[in-house]
């Protein structure tokens, strides 16, 4: 009932469908090109090699379908029993991820689906709105990974946010700071500065 020529809608479900169409059309195009090449006398192996850039792109498009559709459907399923607040933020995340990839792969969508420049403008506005909506929850979303400081092992990312203090503590662990004057001063720099090297 739906064809690749159906009207484009700026919804996550439709973006997933759009990626399915892109993947399907890319695979179809690869097969068609290979068949043409073989029909014109090329060996299958040479035809495969000549189509390999497109084949890699088709496989990537297929994988995008898998990730986008799985993320979309699993979050819908998982949030059936969660609080409305969590459901809302996870739904925003799915939307953001979908729109992000739609904008990243815009040339594919423009080539294979009915998306037009007004839809693209709409996608960009939607993306910017989603960033703003998710902004207040950014720290909460990463806190939820539940990574202790010992696991992050980072001067910048600790739970307490004391990034500058930790950067300085880490700098002091540099072996070069273990002595006030490094031996290279006497061996190389000083003679060099005095014109003796």
């Amino acid at each position: 009932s739906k064809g690749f020529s159906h009207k484009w809608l700026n919804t996550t479900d439709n973006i997933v469908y759009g990626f399915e169409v892109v993947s399907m059309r890319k695979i179809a195009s690869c097969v068609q090109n290979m068949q043409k090449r073989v029909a014109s006398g090329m060996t299958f192996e040479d035809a495969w090699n000549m189509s390999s850039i497109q084949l890699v792109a088709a496989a990537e498009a297929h994988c995008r379908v898998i990730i986008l559709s799985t993320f979309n459907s699993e979050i819908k399923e998982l949030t059936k029993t969660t609080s409305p607040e969590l459901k809302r933020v996870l739904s925003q995340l799915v939307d953001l991820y979908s729109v992000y990839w739609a904008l990243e792969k815009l040339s594919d969508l423009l080539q294979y689906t009915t998306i037009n420049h007004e839809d693209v403008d709409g996608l960009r506005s939607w993306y910017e709105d989603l960033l703003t909506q998710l902004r207040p929850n950014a720290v909460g979303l990463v806190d939820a990974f539940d990574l202790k400081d010992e696991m992050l092992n980072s001067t910048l990312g600790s739970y307490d946010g004391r990034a500058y203090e930790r950067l300085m503590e880490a700098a002091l662990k540099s072996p070069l700071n273990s002595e006030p004057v490094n031996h290279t001063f006497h061996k190389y720099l000083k003679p060099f500065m005095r014109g003796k090297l």
Partner: protein
Amino acid sequence: INEDLNREREKCSFNVKELTILMDGGPEKTKERKERENFMISKRDTYAGIPEDYLSYKEQYEKAVKKSVIVFGLVRRLQEEGKTTIHNYRDVLGNLLRASDVSTGFPLALHYIMFMPAIINQGTDEQTARWLPRAWDCNIIGSYAQTELGHGTFIRGLETTATYDPITKEFVLNSPTLTSYKWWGGGLGQTANYSIVVAQLYTKGECLGVHSFIVQVRDEETHMPLPGIKIGDIGSKLALNGINNGFLGFNNYRVPRNQMLMKHAQVLEDGTYVKSRNPKLNYGAMVFVRVVIAFDMANYLSKAATISVRYSAVRRQCQSKAGEQESQVLDYLTQQHKLLPAVAACYALKITANKLWDTFNTVNEELLAGNLQRLPEIHALACCLKAISTYDTATFIETCRLACGGHGYMHSSNLPTTYSSAVAACTYEGDNTVLLLQTARFLAKTWQEIDNETGKLTPTVEYLKTTK
């Protein structure tokens, strides 16, 4: 706690714990994970010292061995307490590795993620009973030697030979050329004393393609390389220098007949070859390791996203409006554009890896029941997911690093190490381009047969028919 971070946490609109529990798969799973992580963290003092970035190559390896023994000692302890089994150790291992701080990688990792799964997937019941308990208890340490100096993802091109001698009932292993030397096996250099070796099988004068063998490479007591074995470390790499990737060559090295893994194909005592009902059944171990990689990527990216988002809340730079204090960099839309898709990708990858893991288990059960229908599909799926998850993760981590400016360039931020670990994954266990071409082969084949398919296509490609 930094005041900006405090404010961020106060204005969060949802319950953070609820999300953590949801992603873990329930409160019980969260509790188990936390126990394992705390257990791991509590051991930190036993190997604290100079940061690894300041150690030499040799010292990095030695420290990685010390840490590995502690980490995998914990796995053994959990096993003794009945808290982990051979069936759920991926979860346990995942939790422990997430909590570990071995930035140079584990020389024992391949023992768990390749050596043991290969025995489980390719060994007969008798072989599994003989080798798995020893491997599980770490009485022996295994590696996985498939790639050769001159041969990568194209397995059929491997040159190492295993020629069956019916008189002694042994296989004679040889590395006929320099390019046939095994190359890259994790832990193979100085750590492992056994390895799965993939070699061209010859029996009754006929080459029957690549098969896997359990090969002892070092003496169990002295750890000296055995006669006929040439083994060592391949040298310094871009990152992960504690993994001890090794080379391995054979000179008329003999292994008993029952050390060819014979769950699928067999060589009988007289040298008769019994074919596998499907040569692709050996893909199981590869699918397993690629699922593990997808989970690893979700972990690496979660770390990079956490570091860069928290830092972007703390870091203030420039005034948005005159007279105001400097703005939090997280308030700039360009910064949100760098970070929030990366955060979303963490959740997307974790959820997709979970789904792939469930699919892998379902297909494995079908295989045991003799149904091979979904084997090509799961292989194609694991190939592309490994490729895209590693590529996306590396790209998003690099963006997170750039979002932290110069401080993100410091090793102490842990972003460079996290990035180089993800980049390594783009290369190991199959080059991404080659893997995508394997997926493409499956897709092209499916497409060509789509009109002849009377029933439904397998689930992950069903959309091809509906969109067509």
